[in-house]
Every structure is written in structure tokens, then in C-alpha cells.
């Protein structure tokens, strides 16, 4: 994990509590969502629901679960796993908070900016 593989996406406050935002960066062409829980924990997932690729960043965040806006699947924020009995996983992306700024792990060349 080389240092420049960690992208600084700005302060924790730029994400609404119990909410989420999509990044302008993608991983291998797939969008990324960063979530902030009510208790200020942050997580990042590939922003595609394992069901039909609904944008998880538009879902409702309760505890450590986001509910997909398209057909209400629940997805665990930490593992990306769908809540049983649904099955599937949205890829989790490593993330850390340094000095109040969020850094996500997006190694080159997987990263590309949205055109």
C-alpha cells in the first residue's frame, strides 16, 4: 500500500450524518460511495447494490446498514454483505480518517476520475 494510493477526499463533515455521498473517483470504472453513520463512523463501498446495481449512496443509513433505494435490500456498511435472506456483496473499500480528513484506498491504475 503505497502512500499515494490513499486519496484524501476531504473532511468528515462534508458527508451528512446518517448519510452518504458518491465520489468523483471510481474504482475500475465502478462508482464509490462514502457513508457516515450517526456516530461518525465512516465506510466506503462500491456504490452498486448487489441486487441490481442501485446507487447505495442514495439509500437510507440506519446504524451500520444502508437500505438500497431501488428495492430495499439492506447492506452492511462494514462488510458490504447483503442482510439475509438476500445474498450478495458490495465491495468494501479500505478507508481511514487522518486529522479529520477521510482517505480512501484506491491504488493506481484502478482509479480514474469521472470523465
Amino acid at each position, binding site marked *: 500500500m503505497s502512500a499515494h494510493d490513499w486519496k484524501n477526499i476531504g473532511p468528515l463533515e462534508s458527508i451528512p450524518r446518517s448519510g452518504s455521498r458518491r465520489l468523483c473517483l471510481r474504482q475500475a470504472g465502478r462508482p464509490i460511495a462514502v457513508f457516515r453513520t450517526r456516530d461518525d463512523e465512516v465506510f466506503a463501498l462500491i456504490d452498486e447494490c448487489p441486487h441490481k446495481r442501485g446507487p447505495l449512496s442514495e439509500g437510507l443509513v440506519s446504524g451500520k446498514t444502508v437500505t438500497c433505494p431501488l428495492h430495499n435490500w439492506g447492506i452492511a456498511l462494514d462488510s458490504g454483505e447483503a442482510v439475509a435472506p438476500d445474498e450478495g456483496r458490495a465491495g468494501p473499500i479500505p478507508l481511514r480518517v487522518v486529522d479529520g480528513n477521510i*482517505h480512501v484506498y484506491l491504488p493506481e491504475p484502478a482509479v480514474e476520475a469521472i470523465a
Partner: protein
Amino acid sequence: MYINDDLARIPPIAQLVVIGNGMAAMRTVEELLKHEGGKRYRITVFGAEPHVNYNRIMLSSVLAGDKQLDEIVINPREWYEENGIRLITGDEVTAIDRDARTVTSANGICVPYDRLLIATGSKPLAPRIPGLELPGVCAFRDIADVDKMLAAARTHRHAVVIGGGLLGLEAAWGLRQRGMSVALVHLMPTLMERQLDAAAGQLLQRDLDRRGIAFFTEGQTKEITGVDHAESVLLEDGREIPADLVVLAIGIRPRIELAVAAGLEINRGIVVGDDMRTSDPLIFAVGECVEHRGQVFGLVAPIWDQAKVCGARLAGDQAAIFASKALSTSLKITGVEVFSAGALMAADESDEEIMLRDESSGVYKKIVLRDGRLVGVVLYGHVVDGQWYLKLMRDKEDVSALRERLVFGKAFAEAESGGAQAVDYEAMRDDTQICGCNGVCKGDIVKAIRTLKLTTLSEVRAHTKASASCGQCTGQVEEILAYAAGVDAKATKKTVCDCTEADHDEVRAAIRTQQLKSMDAVRAALAWKKPEGCHKCRPALNYYLLCEWPGEYQDDASSRFVNERLHANIQKDGTYSVVPRMWGGLTTPAELHAIADVAEKFKIPTVKVTGGQRIDLLGVKKEDLPAVWSDLGQAGLVSGHAYAKGLRTVKTCVGKEWCRFGTQDSTGLGVKLEKMCWGSWTPHKVKFAVSGCPRNCAEASIKDLGVICIDAGYDLLVGGNGGVDVRVTDLLVRVSTEDEVLQYAGAFMQLYREEAHYMERSAPWIARVGIDYVKRRLVEDAEGREQLCQRFLYSQTFARVDPWHERASGVAAEAFQPLPELAGALA
């Protein structure tokens, strides 16, 4: 071709190669993985089709428009990945080398096997006639065929289906549903002659004829004519039927070429024993490609049994045995109920046929008895007892005692002999089969419901697979759910969600009486199990607080569904739709110009007139929303709240101003109603309509609030609903002035807002509390009505804000933009 080769590799212990990625193959793999012994395989699956495993049965529903292709996927790619299965789609296995123990594909992929599973299904049969090669001719077997048919239905008119069996009839019905003119050619005098006797076949033909399918029975096809596309179907007797699309559905034949070339024992299909092994003990076969004890298969029920046995055997179980059972057939055409099993008629004089025929209601039943046992049943028009008869047949039960009553069905037969009237699930034996496709019995369902505490149909489907294939048993599964979950008294109390023991009314009462003014306060007062609630209760609490404390409670955006948060409707591809308000359905050239300009400027792909008399701009990018709204706002257009649990549209007809029948100014009244009520938040969406006379062109009688103008004034109707369960309105009252209409409307809105449960439309609410209650509150209590209306108008002073205008001028701007990368690399 697609291969998911990036799987985390599990150490290969034994290689299992599967030829065919269809229903039989993947059900076998699912069964195999349930066993501990299943873990010792490294599995590779070849599928000739480019798709993952899907529910082939449902192709009929896709064709008829009842289901989307993506809804019939059984196992998505992730499933293969998670189970470590190497999946190769769009590539056909072309050779099996039994000496080298390898299979080779068309693309040259060669994979060694320790065990091989052949599940190649079957091929559609084609008649030997000229013209089969013409474009416009297809079979009905896979997604590619359905794509062809749907494409033809979009651009062409005439379809001819050849074959009057289950498949042909479902194809014909689907194409008819898609708006084509459909003719069906069938060789025999009656339809589905192998599953139905002549009488039932004729009833079926009569019903489908009424639904616009033209039948050519005893029709032998001679030729499909056309130059570079199909043009017509020519019959031996000289009749010619125009055809842009010809669907062949005359039958299927096991797909056995590979097995033949590999030297396996073959008859009509690949011969397998009770252990599902072919003549080579390392090679198994399941599904429509096999022949077991002289029998070949064309329905999933026995195939699921084969899969179970084959999966167990592969996992090392030495005892599993496949035995075929009596099968039943039904037809998946909405509104046509057909069921048959076993013998269609008496084989000789010692057999007995008992028939019941009710011409006017279109019901026909026939049972065939042999030595006091049921050996056959044909049902038309009323088929709920189908599985019950099937069970009597399978169990070879002695039915002599029931003989006289048997044909009248289960309830009657058992009632007379002391049983219960309705279906008695308590008394029903646990091994009574409910879902024919998946072989799920009553006992399995009840057990799953009780041990896993299931409360919804979809949960039962997910855990038992009952009603998950063709869906015919859905009603019964729902009844069992009611029976089994009803025992648990707590499950019948409709709590707001799993976070709480309180129901909706209790929550509302607590908010009011204990003056609770925040969600945290409600959750604390009522001992919520999760401190933060869940996606079900949060929107409900947010609404209840908003309704109770207008002007005081601050709306919580994070508890709102995305549509209500972004003030636009999310679409399946993640873009949004924008529907501006058109008051009472009226618009102006200037507004239309503004809409046209916005659509061009932002390259909005679809502009559509909605079912609610306004215009929808579909496919708007999220980032563009504020700018789109800003442009629309300049022309005076505001949000139509097409996304809100609030007032949607007020449909009107032209009324007195233009229409020769109009009795009042229905358009003007509609505009007044909409101006009064827009922007309000309600438990669920609310729709109004005003019609200028009882011809009711605005469809007021299926709206939450409908007004029908008459000479003497206005009839106010409430509690109507289109949608899933259509409900016609109840008449609330007749009034004589517009002012009264407006006051009643305000009072009705407020009563609904204060007393209905969140997510309950006015129709189920009134069905629950009764129209008499609503009349008592609104009609008989004039003072109460006045107060309700006042409370509504007060709350409207905070609600009538255009959310688009706010956001176009910068409110919550960041919500519409992706997060930027800031400093780049972290030092």
C-alpha cells in the same frame, strides 16, 4: 464469452464439470452445496447461452409483460463467485473424451473432470416444411427467442404460432398481450390434447378465442412463405395466414448429441438409473435430456426431485433414489385456470368418469376412478383443489366413501364427511404438497414460518422456494402464512417495525399525549430496540412528528427516501425524473416552451405525458437537477411532487366551459383544490380528480378524493384507488357550493393525515375504519369538520414551499455533487 476467472481459488480436490447452465443443472449444484460433501468439488459450469441461470418457466410471463427479464434470474453472477464456481457462459461444450476425462468447448477450453454432469435440456422440434430458415421464424425456448418475439411485436402486426400445447398457448397469449394479432395453428382437433380432454380443450379454445386469438385447429402446416422474411403460413388445406412472425412450439426433444458422440447409452434421452448415473458411472445426467425408466421429462417438478438425488449422490450419499411421481399441468395465462393430472378419460369399461359442467360460469371438472382410487383429474375454470386431487392420486387413497362428493371439490367432500368448510390447514397433513414446481409441502412451509419467524410472502419464498417458480400456489402459501403466523399473537399485531412493540396508533398517541417532539424522544419514550431506528420506522416517525407539530418540528432529510430528499424520482439507472406541476392539468404555451427548452438544453432523453395529466422529463442527471429546476422555475413551474407522500395530481376534465355536457367549472375547481392542498405531507400519496358530469372523464371514482359535478352541485367521493387493488370510492356527501367542496377537502385531508398509518393510502384506511366513521367525523359533526379544515390550512402555511426553488437557489447544494478528491496523495 464470459469467464469469471478472478475467483479466489479453492484447493481443487475433485473436479466437477457441468454441461449446461439451465434449471436442472444449477438446482443440482445448489443441492450439492447443501451437503458437506459438496465442498470437496471444484466446480466448472459451461452454459451455451450468454446468461446466468434463469427461470425458464417465467419466459412466458416476460413475453406477456408480467415480468422483466432481470426479475427471472435465479442465480446472479455473484452467486457463482461466492460459491467458488467457475462459470463459462456463451460457450458450448462440443466434445466429451471419456478416456482422457476431459470436456472441450467450441472456444477450445479443455477442462478435466473427476465427475461430469450433463444437463443440456432439450431442443425445440421443427416440422419438416420449407421456409424454416426465413428471418421472422423462431422457437420459444430461451431468452434469445423472447427477444426476437418482443422485437417483432414492436414493429410488426401478424403472428402465427404453430402448436396448441402449453408452450404454444402461452406464446400466443404473450404476443396477444403485446398487441399483435395472433393466429394459432394446431394439428389436432382440440387444444392441449395430451393434458386436457376434449371438453376442457374446447372451453379453453372458446375462452382464448374471446380474448382475440384466432384458432386453426386440424391445421397441417405446409410451408412458411416469404422472400427475405416470413410473410405467411400456408396450410395443407389451402388456407393462408399472414405472418410477420412465426413461432414454432410443436414439442421438444432431449438434447443428446454430445452423449451420443461420447458413446453413452441412449434411447429417447440419455438413459439414467435411479441414482441419476448414466451408463458411465462417473457421468451423471439430469433434466429434460434424460430418460428414466422409459420416461422423458418436460416439467420442473420431477426435475427438482432428480436434482436432489443427483446432488446427494455427488456428495457421497449412496442411498438417494429417484422415483417419478404423478405429475400435474397448469397453464400460466392470467385468468385462465386449467389443471390436469393423470388419466384424461376412462381407459376401459371398468374405469369410471364423473363429470361436472357449469356452462354459464365456465367451470368443468372431471375425475377418473379405477378400483375405488382416483387416477385422473381435469379441471377447468376452478382449480384450487388441483393439488388436493393430485395428492389423493399419489397416495392411491381409497376414495370410494367420497365417490358422490369428490367431484365437487375438497371443501364439499370433506364437509359432508365431517371435515371443515374452508381449507383447514390445521387438519391438513404435513406432507400435503402445496407448491407443485418445487415439491414443497405444507409441513415445510409451516416449519419455516415458525422457526424462522417469517411474516411475509417474500420471506417464505426466499426460505422455502414455495411459490418461487410458476407462482400458481401463491394464494395458498399466503393462507398458510396467515394460519401459521397467526398462531403467534404478537406477529398479528402490526408493529411499526421490528425496532418496537408499539403499533402506529400507539406511537401517534404517545407523540400527542407526551408532547414528544423529536425522533429520539419518541424512541426513548417507547423503548425502541435500536437507538437509531431503521429504514421502516424513521420515515414514519418523521412524518408523524411533522404532522403533529407543524412549524415546530424540523424535517429530517436523512430519514426520507431518496425521492423525497432530492425532490425527484430515482429511476432504475440512477438518473431522475422531473415532473412540474400543471395545476388541474392546465398549461400554457410559455410553460411548454420552457419544458421544451430544458429538455433540449440538458439533453433529457425522454419526455412523456404521465397518467396524471402532466409532463415527465425522464433521465435527468443528478448534477443537473438544480439547474433544470432553476430554468423551469423562471417560467413559473414548480415541483409536481410526483415523488412525495403528499398531494400528487388533481385531474380534471374540461367541464362546463367547453363540454356540451359539463354542469360546473370542473377545471377551475380542480385548480382551486390543487392550490389549496399542494405541498402537504400525508401518510401516503394523495390524488384528486374533478369530473364535470357523471360521465366522469377525470376518473374521479378511483381517486383518494373525487368530485363529480352535477346540476344540483357536487358529489364528494372518497377512498378510491387505482393501482394494485382497485377500489371504487364511497360517496361521502352531496354539497351545493365550491366553498363547501373546499372545506370538506381540507377536513378530509386533515383527518387522513392525523389518523391513517404511515404508508396507508386513503382506500385501505377507509376500508379499515369504515366510511360511516368518516361520515360521522366530516358530515355529521359540522364543527369538527370546520376545525379539521382549520388545522389543515394552518399546517399548509408551512408546507406550501416549492422545494425546487429552494434548491435552485442553493439549499443543500452539496447533496447534488460528488465528493472531490482534495489533496491527492497522502504524504
